[in-house]
Structures are given as C-alpha cells and as structure tokens.
C-alpha cells in the first residue's frame, strides 16, 4: 500500500504542493477535522473536563449545595484511615487481582484456540461458532446463569464434581470462579481476533521457514508470533482494559462477597456515584483508576515497541 507514496518522484510531485498551497487556507485541515473534533469534544473532552470539575467538589447529585473542596476527595482516597480510602484500595486490589489472574489466560488460551481453528479440518466452522457462542450472551445472562450453577450449597457445579467449594462466597475460589466465567464468556472474541491475525500471515513465510528446515515450534516463534505482533498489542491492551473494567460478573455472581473482597473498582465507583450519589468521590476514584490504566497501557506499548527495535 505504500507503493503510491514511493512511486511518484519527478516533476508532477513538485507541481502538486504549489497548486495545493494556493487553495489551502490555514484552517483547511481543521475544517476537515471538524466533524471528528466536534464529536471528540462533545463525547470525550467535555465529559472528562466535567468529571475533573466534579471531582474537585463535594458533588452530591441532588443536594443543591455543591461546595468546592479542592483536592480533598483525592486526599481522602489516599488516606487509608478514611472510609472511602480503605474501600477504594480494597477495590483497586480486587481489580488488580482479577486483571493479573485473567489477562494471561485470556491471551494464551484464545491464541491456542485460534491456532487450532486455523487448521484445516472438518467441521471447522462449527468449532469457531461454538467457541464464540458465549460471547453473544449479555453479562446479565452469564452472571445469573453462573451464580446458580456455582452456588456452593445448591449449585450444579459442586453437585456434579462432588466438591464442597464455596465458589461465590470465599476467596480464592471466588476469584477462580470469576476468572473462569470471564474466560468462558470472552475467550471467543480474542480467539476470533487472533484467527484473523493468523490468516493475515502470508503462507509463503511459513513455506520458506519449512524449506529452511524449521520445525513447528520454531515456525511458531519465528513466523507466527512476530506476524501477530500488531494484533497482539491490540489484544493485550484491550484485554487489560476490559479486565480492569470488570463489573458485571462480580456484581451478579458474588455481589462483592466475601465482605467486599471481590468488589472491583468500577463496582465501587458505580456504587458510590449512582447509589450513594457521591459523584465527587466517585469521579476522583475514576481519575485515579484512569491514571493506573494509562500507565498500564503505556507499559504494554513500551514492551512491544522495544521488541520492534531489536
């Protein structure tokens, strides 16, 4: 696709900028950007600005007085002795535990599934559909379904496995349950993205590697993985963000049990802002969480960029 750019040395090229310049005003590029900028402003900049403004106030949705408190909401969050501070860091910890536990599985397992589905065998489309099927269910369906299946005393999972594990009211079983349900639910999406990435890797590269005598493992490491790198950056980032935003599963399956240990940051933010109407604290929590996620994303991009240079 960069053919067009490299193919045009010569006189024609010099003429173009001259003509363009005569028609270009300084605002021309901005005019082209305007439709996007308008949307970006209305749906991104304004809400972010409004959120920041809110986080600097004691902002109760329906109390008329919304006193300006400066950074007090943030100070409160960083004070482990305060009610909101201790709750927030417990929730951040829950989010961290879930992310660390779920992301590796949500990368490796879908990759394996994608490799399998990339092969040529009978009924391939059926398998693809089967793996993707849970993803079309909403979180409410998934949550309710598993809440009853996983119930420690009346659930089918314990019944058929002959276990006595409290999947929804004890840690670590609750984490295993939440990660397991999430993997079952969203594995299909990552697998499909990986599959698309795999199909984009030219066959010739594999053939050339084979001619050079590379075995399956070597081909995977030297051809498949590098070929997947752009897809991988996207999947890793999207999965980290999705895991860090986990809400529905713990809301519906464990209800934060045991004693708020599986109450994630988003869960707590929603509860603080929309149930207790304390928008100021909730906004402050959102900004702290957003800062963490930005650092995480930057790290992921950093890791993959370093490999590029090598």
């Amino acid at each position: 696709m960069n053919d067009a750019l490299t193919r045009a040395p010569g006189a024609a090229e010099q003429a173009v900028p001259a003509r363009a310049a005569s028609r270009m005003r300084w605002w021309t590029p901005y005019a082209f950007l305007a439709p996007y900028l308008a949307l970006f402003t209305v749906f991104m900049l304004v809400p972010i600005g409004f959120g920041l403004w809110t986080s600097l106030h004691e902002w109760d949705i329906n109390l008329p007085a919304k006193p300006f408190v400066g950074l007090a909401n943030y100070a409160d969050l960083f004070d482990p002795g305060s009610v909101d501070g201790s709750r927030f860091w417990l929730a951040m910890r829950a989010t961290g535990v879930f992310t660390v536990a779920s992301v590796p599985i949500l990368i490796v397992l879908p990759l394996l599934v994608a490799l399998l589905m990339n092969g040529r065998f009978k009924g391939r489309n059926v398998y693809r559909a089967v793996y993707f099927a849970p993803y079309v269910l909403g979180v409410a369906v998934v949550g309710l379904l598993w809440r009853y299946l996983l119930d420690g005393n009346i659930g089918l999972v314990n019944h058929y496995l002959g276990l006595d594990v409290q999947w929804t009211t004890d840690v670590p079983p609750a984490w295993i349950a939440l990660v397991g349900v999430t993997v079952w639910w969203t594995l299909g999406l990552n697998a499909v993205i990986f599959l698309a990435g795999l199909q984009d890797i030219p066959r010739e590269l594999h053939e050339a590697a084979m001619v050079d005598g590379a075995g399956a493992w070597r081909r995977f490491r030297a051809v498949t993985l590098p070929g997947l790198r752009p897809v991988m950056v996207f999947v890793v980032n999207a999965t980290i963000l999705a895991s860090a935003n986990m809400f529905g599963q713990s809301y519906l399956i464990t209800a934060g049990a045991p004693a708020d240990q599986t109450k994630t940051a988003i869960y707590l933010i929603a509860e603080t802002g929309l149930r207790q109407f304390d928008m100021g604290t909730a906004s402050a929590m959102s900004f702290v969480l957003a800062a963490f996620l930005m650092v995480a994303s930057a790290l992921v991009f950093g890791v993959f960029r370093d490999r590029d240079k090598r």
Partner: protein
Amino acid sequence: MTNPLSRRAFLGLTGAAGLTTALAACGGGTRLGAGSGTPTPAAPAFTGGEYTGPKVTLEYWNGFTGGDGPHMRTMLDGFNQRFAGRIEVRNVTRRWEDLYPAMPTAIAAGKGPDVAIIHNDWIGTFAVRQVLIPIDDVVGALRLTEDDFIPAVWKAGSYAGKRYSVPLDVHCLGDYYNTAHLEKIGLKEAPADRAAYEEALAELKKAGIAAPFWMPNKWPAHLMFMSLLWQHGGELYSEDGTRALWGSEQGVQALSWMVEQIDKGYSPAKVAIDSQYAAFKNDKVSLTWDGIWQINDLRTNAPSLKWNLAPVPAIGGSPAVWSASHNFVLTAQAGRDANKVQAAKVFIDHMSRQSTEWAKAGMIPARNSARQAPEVAELPQVKLAADLSAFHFLPALPGVGDVQSKALELAVAKAVLKQAAPADALKEGVATADKLLADNKRKYGR
C-alpha cells in the same frame, strides 16, 4: 509554518472551548437538585373528595417485585377504571435496591415518579434531598392520627415539622418453618425461645436434616442481626444520630449467636446470597427467617412445600423483630404541576383507604384499627403483629442507608463468613459507621 494559529495554540483553544462547555454543563448540573427549589405553584389544600382538574397522567413507582406485585396492580386497575378519563396512573415496578438510587435523579430530570412508595427509613433521606413535598393536608383529610399507628412508623413520616408520608402497611421478618420437618421431631409449631429453638435444631439434625437453619451472610443477615440486637436489649444508633451503638456487648452476643449456628453445624459455612431461601423452597431447610412478603411467593412457586409462619423467636430474652413500613409519598416532580399534586393526593387518599385489600398481598395494615377487621385478622402475617412492642424500626436519619450498607452489613458479613471474630468485626464496623454519621451530619446540615 506561517499559520497565524499554531497547532499548539489551536489545541489550547479547543481545550478552553471544551472547558467552557464543561463549565456551562456544570451550570446545568447544579440545576438538578435545585429543580425542587423552584417555587411550587400553589396547589389548593387537599380536603378529600373528587378530582376536578383537567386529565392528568401520574407516574407511580414502587418496588413490589415479589408476591405483593400482582396485588398492587389489581388495586391500581381498580383506581384507573374508577377515574377513567380524569386520572391515569402508570405503574413502574422495579427492585427496591434499583428504585432508591434512581428516584432522586429521575425526579430531578422530570422523568421520575409523581407519586411513589418508599420505606420508612428513606423518608428522612429523601426529605432532606428535597425529593419529596409535604402532604399534611392528605393526612388531615384521611383523618389519620398518631394514636392509630405504631409510633415509630408515624414519626418516621415527619421531617423538620412536616409530614411527608401516608403509611400503607408494616411488614417484618418472620420465622418460616417446614411443617413436615418439624413433625419429624414432634413439633407442631416453631419454637419461640432460645432453649427450645436450639434444642429443635439439634433434634432436626439428628432426624436427618443435615443443615436445618442456614445462616446468610448477605440479605437478610443484617435484619436478623438487628432483630437479635434489639432482643438482647441493644440499640442501633444514638438518639441524635451521631454514634453507632450496635458494637455493644449486646451486639456481640447477637452476632455470636448467628455464627454459632454455623459452628454447631446447623448451617453450612459461607452460604451464598439468597440460597437459604432457595433451599427452604426446595425442602432442604427446616427454618429460615425472611420477610412476610414472601408468603405469596411460597404459595405460588412452592405449592408442594408444607410450611407455616411464626414470629421470630426471642433468642435474646425479650421479643423483638426488624420491621419496616411502606409509605405513599408525593414527589417534587409532581410539585411542578398543581393539577398533578391534586390528582396524586386523590390517588394516595383512595389507595390508603384500601389497606384491607392490600393486606392480602402479605402485608400488615399500618393502621391499628384496620388490623381488627375480621378478614384481616385471620391472615397469617397479622398474627405476627399481635405484640406490637416487638416491632423495631430503623431510625429515619438522613443517609442512614449508606451507614447500614457500608458498615453494619459489612460487619455482619465478615463475622458470618468467619473473616473476623464478631467483636472485632463490629468494632471495625462501628468505627466506620461513626465516621459516616459525622459526615452525614455535616452533609445534610442538621
């Protein structure tokens, strides 16, 4: 690079524009709560009787999602038929835990209820949030007087000298028992005191019921805890609402008894939310404490189960049980339209005269006089109201709901899940509660 406006300056400008818009939006935001502060067009005082204004539609919110819902809809149909062409009441039923958070914002946006049902302990919070408008005149027209009500129910409806509610019913926790299980150990009724209750549990276990009394860690665990606390003579909050008192010696005794049921093997450990009730419905549990509104649910959805309902046993010595009441309230949204105010008052007046009918939904009429009507007195739940002194209510302190969920319910859950000893869980919870109470005091400016 001769652009009069550099890229950086442009970004700065857009940022500034964004911020201006944001600030403008803030201006809009402050209006949210202040909407109710706009002067209400003077509606004439309600004196009872008919509605004479133009046709209006009222939005009516309630949380009757259980066995009580169909009954409310029937009553509503009756009202709509009678007032056809004049008042139309549209019903919105959603779970209480979703209804309360949504109501204030929806009302501020003009998309909420004009008239609603809320619990006694929310009246204070909503009154101070200016979500409600006073209805002293309706109470007057209904000729409701304090001496016809349980004092706690009546007092919960007034805030800063004005009445905000018309109580519809009271409801409480009850002791549901599986009659087939109890027959195995030769009991016809659920035991009523501690010694008999514990003996029955031991007998039931011997009779082959592996876990006869499941102890929840979430809802209704906190209702059980509060009932037991009051039975032991403890109190929830100080009179002025500045201190939590549930960490007392009585609180420890109450919570310890709950944990004991697990230690003695009468309950499995770490029971998941709602599964004690599901297990009761499925004939696996002999005794479970739940709200009386489940009566119709058990009748409809567990027809083969043999069960009955008794008052919560007096474990701590004196009988006491958590209770609450449903109340009609008029919202600030209706307050913007004098006709709606009139119509809503007619509606509340009409509906609250039918508390006998409502009792069939599994509730206890709030009016002492209505409980004496023969068709009501025979209902199973009304027997629970024989001793009204046992009924204890959550105080209507503004913001008490937050304190309950962030501190008390968490402490109970921690102890039942064995994450902390009862005394330690309560101590930690009370420390949190005291901070929240101080915060509320300041926030709601009392």
